[in-house]
């Protein structure tokens, strides 16, 4: 079974994240790291490969520095990677990204696409669904458990009330939630091997992406303005002198919560 895992490089949450003057992500302002939820996607793909055989390919769309995240993904044990990198893609929003990825997937043979349920920067949570729409494939998103049996796939889709058991036939698009597994740490040996694994570079045209449909100028959403959030008014902080609970109760009563 051949699996493609989508990987996104995101700004490190622990650093100060900024937007550039055109309201796109300022990638120079903070360190780029692999999107945390993608590590669960990679792990799930590797587990499926160990069970069913086949190859795991990393697909990432991003500028040059995304190479670091691709190498990280390869060092976890993926076999090869495809890096879609083109100036024309800069500033693409979530739906444009899904479109571009759907085109790039057209150049790869796969039975399953796996991605994290959202990215920690934009957090839209729509790429998996939009990708399934573009590809016309079954959408098995928000999976907390994945089982493949031949050409049949079954997932536990996380819901507000618990989960839905969802069934489909491959090929399909699966997004995974945190805690579906325990992502492995790359071993030294795998890190060394990853340096030699093939990374295919694709420009927009190579991937069959219509450049009139991607990038900031063609974005389906436009950010009008961005400003630092107004600081919250300084609160009242007291030390517990044995009456801390009573003081909070008084605060809540004042605010009409009790």
């Amino acid at each position, binding site marked *: 079974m051949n699996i493609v895992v989508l990987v996104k490089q995101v700004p490190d949450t622990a650093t100060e994240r900024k937007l550039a003057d055109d309201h796109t992500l300022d990638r120079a302002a903070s360190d780029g790291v692999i999107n945390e939820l993608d590590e669960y996607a990679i792990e799930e793909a590797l587990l499926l490969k160990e069970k069913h055989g086949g190859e795991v390919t990393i697909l990432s769309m991003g500028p040059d520095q995304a190479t670091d995240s691709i190498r990280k993904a390869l060092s976890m044990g993926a076999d090869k990677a495809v890096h879609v990198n083109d100036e024309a893609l800069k500033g693409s929003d979530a739906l444009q990204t899904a479109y571009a990825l759907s085109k790039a997937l057209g150049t790869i043979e796969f039975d399953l696409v796996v991605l994290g349920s959202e990215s920690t920067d934009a957090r839209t949570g729509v790429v998996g669904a939009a990708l399934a729409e573009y590809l016309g494939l079954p*959408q098995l998103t928000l999976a907390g458990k994945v089982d493949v049996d031949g050409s049949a796939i079954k997932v536990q889709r996380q*819901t507000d009330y618990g989960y839905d058991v969802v069934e489909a036939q491959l090929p399909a698009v699966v997004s995974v939630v945190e805690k579906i597994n325990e992502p492995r740490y790359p071993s030294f040996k795998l890190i060394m091997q990853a340096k030699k694994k093939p990374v295919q570079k694709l420009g927009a045209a190579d991937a069959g992406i219509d450049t009139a449909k991607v990038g900031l100028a063609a974005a389906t*959403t436009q*950010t009008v303005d961005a400003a630092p959030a107004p600081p919250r008014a300084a609160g*009242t902080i007291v030390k517990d002198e044995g009456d801390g609970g009573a003081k909070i*109760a008084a605060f809540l009563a004042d605010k009409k*919560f009790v």
Partner: protein
Amino acid sequence: MAEVLVLVDHVDGEVKKVTTELLTAARRIGEPAAVWVGAGADSGKAKLAEFGAEKVYVAPAELNDYVVAPKAELLAKLAGEKSAAAILVSATAENKEIAGRTAVKLGSGVLTDVVDVTAELVAEHSVFGGALVTHAKVASGTPVVAIRPNSVPAEPASGAAAVEEVSVEVSEAAKGAKVVERVVQEQGARPELTEAAIVVSGGRGVGSDDFSVVEKLADSLGAAVGASRAAVDSGWYPNQFQVGQTGKTVSPNLYIALGISGAIQHRAGMQTSKNIVAVNKDPEAPIFELADFGVVGDLHTVAPQLTEEIEKRK
């Protein structure tokens, strides 16, 4: 006035509060038309009328048998037929997916996790863990907007809520992912986390898998229970209650953080809460920078006292 489609969230005919918030937001833009999937519209429509829905489009329950795609087909079809000005959904994980697919079908755009929206469909977002406030709009076509629960205060206004049955032919492509079983996990009488008006969360300071100190306070307030990643990672509380960057985002009227330091990953999930109360032993904990009211102390003595005080005042 153009119709604004509002996808109704309901449980067996009981309309969720967030839908009344969406109807309120829809009235700024145009004429609210509720979109109801499944049974129960007859009992639910009174609530929709109370918040200004002029129409209620009712689609068959069969749409729920498959993941997301049929509802996107329904919304795209209605948006085309009714020349809708916008489509509003609540920003739940599933509805954001429906919104995304609908926008692809319509060739428009989607705005997610919106905390406010104007009559001109300019949407406000809180991004990067609440560090920035941005405004955005959809470039062309029918905007699809996913609004966070508890963001727009619901205001009543009467509407006709005229029911109209919608026939939908679910395409073969939309039947790819079939729901074969729904498993409801016990969460007792507590409200759903992302929709709750009050959330009480516990973190590392709880110290063990005995979350009763958090749960008792939550129950005294009719609140939902949340947990920080540290507590979930320690196996003290189930994953689905995790608040933060890789968990749920909540925006309640009151958020009480017990023994949570307030790392950026946690703040990303609760920073837009209207009132924040924190209890932590460490006076330097970053959560106190957000807190409207904070107590430096041991949650194991402060929280039970608070619970007792609340019970006394009932």
